[in-house]
């Protein structure tokens, strides 16, 4: 779990200087200059200049209240809250101005060819309207994105809550009910801890897909049955095959022996390479003399050694009285890819 934080800090941006005021001023200046030019009689082609400038002014007016919407925090989907009274006035003014210029344009005979006019007119009007409405459109898209993100988060949160309820909360209730039975409490706590760890830190993979998961599962069963703690470390992973499963079973038997006869801590280390699967099971004493195990005890001979040998592997039990016992299980891997 890379530490993905659910919430990112709000980014506060300083509102920009009143850019639209400056733009409006510039446009007014331009308009007056254009009028002056007409008065002085040059610029016959400038019949469209004034309406063009008026349209630009309309754009500025309509867009101006939305500067916060385009740059600021989009997590306030409440459009109305963005608007002060004068913003509304600006929008309405801008819309009126824009519509007036478009009406003027619709009447303007910029060419005598009616066909060309009929083609150009709607295109220009549509583009102009799109320009006026663009920021609103952008804002809508952003809002949809924000909404979707919020829904996804909500869903994740619900799922986590459900998981906690089904697992941790239930276990805690059970633990409270069994408070006077330390063994049961320890077992419940261990099982729950394991479950939660798996939920938090591991890719959830099935026993068939991952031999590491299979081994962990097998060891967990022994932990629960015998009330011991076993540390499992796995290196490498692959799909579970028949041979690997035999290795896991043998390891489970070895862990069971360690739980029955040995002291904690018990550690299991499994290493999967291209050509073999090795599992080491080690307890912390008291050790025994393997040659003195009675002939009628079948645990080591059948369940561990016999099982691994059937798959072409081998198992070695190394122990001496007073020392630690370590079982080494080796299963060769055939070409199973």
């Amino acid at each position: 779990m890379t530490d993905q934080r659910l919430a990112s800090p709000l980014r506060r941006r300083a509102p920009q200087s009143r850019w639209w005021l400056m733009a409006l001023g510039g446009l007014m200046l331009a308009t007056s200059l254009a009028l002056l030019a007409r008065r002085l009689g040059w610029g016959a082609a400038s019949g469209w200049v004034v309406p063009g400038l008026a349209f630009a002014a309309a754009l500025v007016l309509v867009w101006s209240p939305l500067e916060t919407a385009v740059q600021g925090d989009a997590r306030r989907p409440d459009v109305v809250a963005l608007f002060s009274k004068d913003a509304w006035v600006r929008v309405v003014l801008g819309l009126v101005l824009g519509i007036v210029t478009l009406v003027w344009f619709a009447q303007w005979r910029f060419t005598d060819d009616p066909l060309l006019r009929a083609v150009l007119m709607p295109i220009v009007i549509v583009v102009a309207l799109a320009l006026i409405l663009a920021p609103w459109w952008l804002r809508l898209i952003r809002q949809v994105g924000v909404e979707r993100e919020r829904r996804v988060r909500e869903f994740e949160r619900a799922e986590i809550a459900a998981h906690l309820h089904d697992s941790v909360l239930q276990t805690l209730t059970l633990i409270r009910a069994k408070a006077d039975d330390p063994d049961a409490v320890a077992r419940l706590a261990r099982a729950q801890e394991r479950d939660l760890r798996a939920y938090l830190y591991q890719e959830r993979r099935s026993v068939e897909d991952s031999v590491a998961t299979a081994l962990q599962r097998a060891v967990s069963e022994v932990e629960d049955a015998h009330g011991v703690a076993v540390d499992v470390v796995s290196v490498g992973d692959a799909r579970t095959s028949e041979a690997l499963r035999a290795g896991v079973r043998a390891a489970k038997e070895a862990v069971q022996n360690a739980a029955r006869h040995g002291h904690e801590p018990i550690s299991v280390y499994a290493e999967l390479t291209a050509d073999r699967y090795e599992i080491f099971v080690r307890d912390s004493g008291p050790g025994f003399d393997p040659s003195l195990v009675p002939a009628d005890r079948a645990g080591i001979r059948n369940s561990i050694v016999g099982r691994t040998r059937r798959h072409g592997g081998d198992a070695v039990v190394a122990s001496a009285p007073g020392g630690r016992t370590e079982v080494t299980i080796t299963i060769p891997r055939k070409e199973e890819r």
Partner: protein
Amino acid sequence: MSTSVVIVDDHDVIRVGVRESLEDDIEVVGEGRDVESAIAAIRQARPQVVILDVHLPGGTGGGALDVLAEVLHDPEPPRVLALSVSDAAEDVVAVVRAGARGYVTKSISGPDLSDAVRRVASGDAVFSPRLAGFVLDAFNAAGGEVASVDEDLDKLTAREQEVMRLIARGYTYREVGEKLFISIKTVETHVGKVLHKLQLTSRHELAHWAATRRIV
């Protein structure tokens, strides 16, 4: 010769537990419960060792990484022992690469933890079986790649692999030494070199650990 430590963990229960389980020659000189208070406590108390939880609130959200980035650049930086319930390889490896001198899980026993603190204080690295497993995985050591020269940062030498394997199998440093017929000092040297490689290598597998869990 007592060792001074600062305990950093966001759970009061764990801090109390760690404090209780440390042996008498280890003196707790400060505590922290988030990134900011941890940095403050470390700068104020100047401990030899910081016992640092991997997941901490505060800072920029990097948890222990934020603390390491701050305090390891101070003059006479403390040595850091990472302590975590996390089994996530990328967390552990990230913290070790950021400069922690060891990593142990919270299930560690009191005497073992005290031993780990002393070890870190004396400049050695502390590897739990789990960390050794992560390292072997990260260096693709199970695939049998062996460094031809010591200076090859991308691979472990055959000896380093042996040492890591034994630690992963639950051997103590002393037992590793006995098994390989080398002194504890030599074992510590190997472990230190592995830690060094882990912190220096730019190996792709380490950076994109989780994404590239190797399927043989």
